[in-house]
């Protein structure tokens, strides 16, 4: 753990990413005690009020301005981050676990298991993800749990395909043959020899996916299929603010910035994490 921190400290980009993530997570966790205005209550006399820097210190003012029904944007951003982060991380972890296991199974077992799984992936790839998401949410109804499930469903195939390709080359490696030669069970080979060697690619996919899923979650909300109003969500804010982009830039810019900043910090941290878990680059430092 000490090594983890010193190594992180030495990497500038990783450190920036980690600090940003910590700030985002901390702020979203602390939302209830920050004494923010109610993110769901509008004030029709204060519609589309512009941001004021002094607003940070004046009670009742709106530092980042208000939206078209007079709701405080800062409060909605912070409260929305809770939902977005929860939804995106759960979906990516869920999709990652399922996709990695199925990818290993398909790549290592080959044969019928492989063919069935890869057909499934092909079929799913042929259907636009957004359409799939729309269909599933429409069928199951938009709820927090269903949004997570849908996002995980669009995510697992990306892990599965990349992990499978890795496994195909790994299983020809001599250490896997050597595991056979000592009589190791298939399960042992898959989890002790293959899995640790695909964690790095899984992590890389995970970072890319986290970014993609945050955007897709926003897109679902944008289309009105994410978490339902009045619960704040970044995508929803983007959708609502878009109409006023020429007259009230803040209504769409701040949620957009929040998405970009989160995705960026996740990527920076993910890059460093990948290097850290690669024994080769670790000792090179």
């Amino acid at each position, binding site marked *: 753990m000490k090594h983890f921190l010193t190594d992180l400290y030495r990497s500038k980009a990783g450190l920036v990413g980690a600090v940003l993530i910590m700030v985002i997570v901390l702020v979203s966790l602390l939302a209830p005690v920050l004494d923010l205005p109610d993110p769901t209550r509008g004030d029709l006399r204060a519609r589309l009020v512009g941001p004021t820097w002094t607003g940070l210190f004046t009670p009742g003012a709106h530092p980042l301005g208000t939206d078209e029904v007079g709701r405080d944007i800062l409060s909605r951003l912070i409260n929305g981050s809770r939902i977005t982060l929860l939804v995106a991380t759960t979906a990516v972890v869920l999709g990652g676990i399922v996709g990695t296991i199925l990818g290993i199974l398909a790549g290592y077992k080959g044969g019928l298991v492989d063919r069935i799984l890869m057909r499934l992936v092909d079929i799913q790839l042929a259907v636009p993800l957004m359409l799939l998401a729309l269909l599933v949410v429409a069928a199951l109804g938009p709820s927090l749990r269903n949004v997570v499930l849908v996002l995980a469903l669009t995510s697992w195939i990306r892990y599965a395909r990349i992990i499978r390709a890795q496994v195909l080359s790994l299983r020809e*490696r*001599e*250490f896997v*043959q*050597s*595991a*056979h*030669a*000592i*009589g*190791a*069970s298939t399960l*042992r080979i898959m989890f*002790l*020899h293959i899995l*640790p*060697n695909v*964690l790095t690619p899984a992590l890389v996919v995970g970072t890319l996916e986290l970014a993609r899923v945050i955007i897709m979650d926003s897109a679902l909300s944008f289309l009105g299929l994410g978490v339902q109003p009045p619960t704040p969500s970044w995508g929803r804010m983007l959708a609502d603010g878009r109409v006023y982009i020429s007259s009230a830039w803040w209504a769409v810019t701040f949620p957009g910035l929040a998405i970009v900043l989160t995705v960026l910090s996740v990527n920076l941290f993910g890059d460093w994490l990948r290097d850290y878990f690669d*024994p*080769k680059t670790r*000792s090179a430092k």
Partner: protein
Amino acid sequence: MIPAPLLDVQNLMRSFGGGKSLLGRPRPVINAINDVSFQVAAGETLGLVGESGSGKSTVGRAVLQLDPADSGSVRFAGTELTILGPQQMKPFRRRMQMIFQDPYSALNPRMKVGRFVAEPLVVHGVAGGSALTDRVADLFRLVGLDPSFMTRYPHEFSGGQRQRINIARAIALEPAFIVADEPITALDVSIQAQIINLFQDLQDQMGLAYLFIAHDLSMVRYLCQRVAVMLRGRIVEIAPTENIFSDPQHPYTRSLLAAIPVPDPDRKRPDRPPFAVSENIPPREAGMIEVSPGHFVLEHKK
């Protein structure tokens, strides 16, 4: 009466390819090994020599049932292995092991080498806890490595050290037979002799039998009691080592002998007798002839 050999391989066949490609074109069939038969006695070293692609590794993998043959028989200590399921095969995995050609890809890059060497002992439930650590430390010492290396990852080691780690893993279960697939080819010349000595020491201490695979005859002379020469998936000559060197019969064996590097740089190497593989593909129906006791050669054009 001659005692039954430890390993008895008969008429082993393995081909790759065949069938049709995605576009419907027939894929060529490669007979990687074709009618290969040989025996290895307990404590003996049999050399298996041939150029790249002649099927040596395929023989090694087929013997250990890692990539089973299409047909033929592999008997180990009197038991037919080709008909065993994975569970029935497991006890035999304790008694026969393999050391791989490429020491770099033979180690799991994500597993500490101590754990890697310990794995066979864990899989077979031989040792656990501190007894396991002690045993692994012993194995490290046995192959000439400092036991403190146990907690390191493979990338911290040189090729020679890696091969020692592979050897430690292979001998962990005290096998009777080891397939060593070109174990020194990938190593620096200066390291090769050390590893060869290690093989010999281990054989003296543990009574190991080896199938020692090599692509030329230079090292084989010091290590092997008998040598089998392979060409295009077939054994073309098999004989005690002295016979191979003093009285080679097959033209391919002769060309391999002529290719051995001469240690003295002033002495010019004799020209390699011309040997065109394509004209010397062993005819399918050719049989082995015994030219002297224990010295067999495949029928060939003179």
